[in-house]
């Protein structure tokens, strides 16, 4: 006869492979982390007195969790306070036209309102307010190097000491897992007053999420 723990394991495993818990979906459901990050970013603005309005959601809020596709076919948030008018978008392309940089796809981007050009690329020099790279992983050093590489291509002035004076809202690496092995880099960014941050353990309901919302900018 099976023990209670064995029954519990069997019950859990029996669901895998069925319905929306098929392996092909399980292997892609991590993308919900990007949608989650988009929401906590919207919430960070809301709690600072910005007005948030969901757009393009007549048939439900459709999170664009993949790089291809026209961003205007998916939902996004607008963010407004006084003269500040931004959009929070998922998976849009950005390029620094002044430096003819690489064109890079950003997981979450906060851009100036109506700044997506006809080619659906945001000009990172002029219109990218901030961005977040979202990894449903534990942190490891290569992720920081990748973030710094993206910053170098798109907004290299963020890499200078005291860049926070010019870029009020830090771009960030958002991790769902532990960032223990790389958090010393976050301390270094803060010590140098750089507009780059790393946030770890962003899991539903965790204190880390509340801390991100309160302390991001």
């Amino acid at each position, binding site marked *: 006869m099976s023990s209670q723990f064995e029954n519990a394991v069997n019950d859990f*495993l029996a669901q895998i492979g069925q319905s929306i818990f098929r392996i092909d979906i399980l292997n892609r*459901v*991590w993308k919900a982390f990007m949608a989650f990050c988009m929401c906590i970013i919207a919430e960070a603005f809301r709690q600072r007195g910005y007005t948030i309005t*969901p757009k393009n959601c007549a048939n439900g809020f459709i999170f664009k969790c993949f790089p291809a596709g026209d961003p205007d076919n998916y939902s996004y948030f607008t963010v407004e306070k006084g003269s500040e008018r931004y959009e929070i978008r998922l998976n849009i392309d950005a390029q620094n036209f002044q430096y003819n940089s690489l064109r890079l796809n950003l997981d979450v981007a906060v851009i100036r309102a109506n700044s997506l050009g006809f080619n659906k690329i945001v000009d990172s020099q002029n219109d990218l307010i901030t961005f977040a790279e979202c990894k449903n992983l534990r942190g490891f050093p290569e992720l920081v190097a990748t973030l710094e590489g993206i910053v170098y291509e798109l907004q290299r002035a963020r890499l200078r000491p005291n860049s926070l004076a010019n870029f009020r809202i830090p771009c960030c690496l958002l991790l769902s897992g532990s960032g223990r092995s790389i958090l010393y880099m976050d301390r270094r960014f803060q010590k140098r007053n750089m507009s780059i941050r790393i946030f770890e353990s962003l899991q539903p309901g965790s204190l880390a*999420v509340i801390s991100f919302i309160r302390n991001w900018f």
Partner: protein
Amino acid sequence: MTEEDFRRICRKFADKLGPTFIERVERRIKEDFEKALEKSPKELLIAIIEDIHLRFILPFEMSLQIGAYLAELYDIKDCILALSERHYLYLSERQEEIRRFVDSFYRMVRELGLEEQFKKQEERWWKI
């Protein structure tokens, strides 16, 4: 639970989730699956459950919270993850199913005596 129990449970996961999953767990523990199974089956089981928690359970929990957030603050009833141009995951229609899946995970963790490592957190960050 005995060491043999832990081994049997580890094998169940490996059989169900296949070689790609095992390779990922091996990268996580930096050790061969069979060796870890022999040497420290409880630690191996924790590594397996950590991987499942991070990759499968948390994203579903996030999707439940996203649905609640959009409904409570913006009165949006339907939320959809577009995983690719043609592959949409309709979260709102699946909430009960997702909740059952997540609950069964935490029930399993409790029965295995691992609830300290994998606590369900339900704080609503938009209400703080």
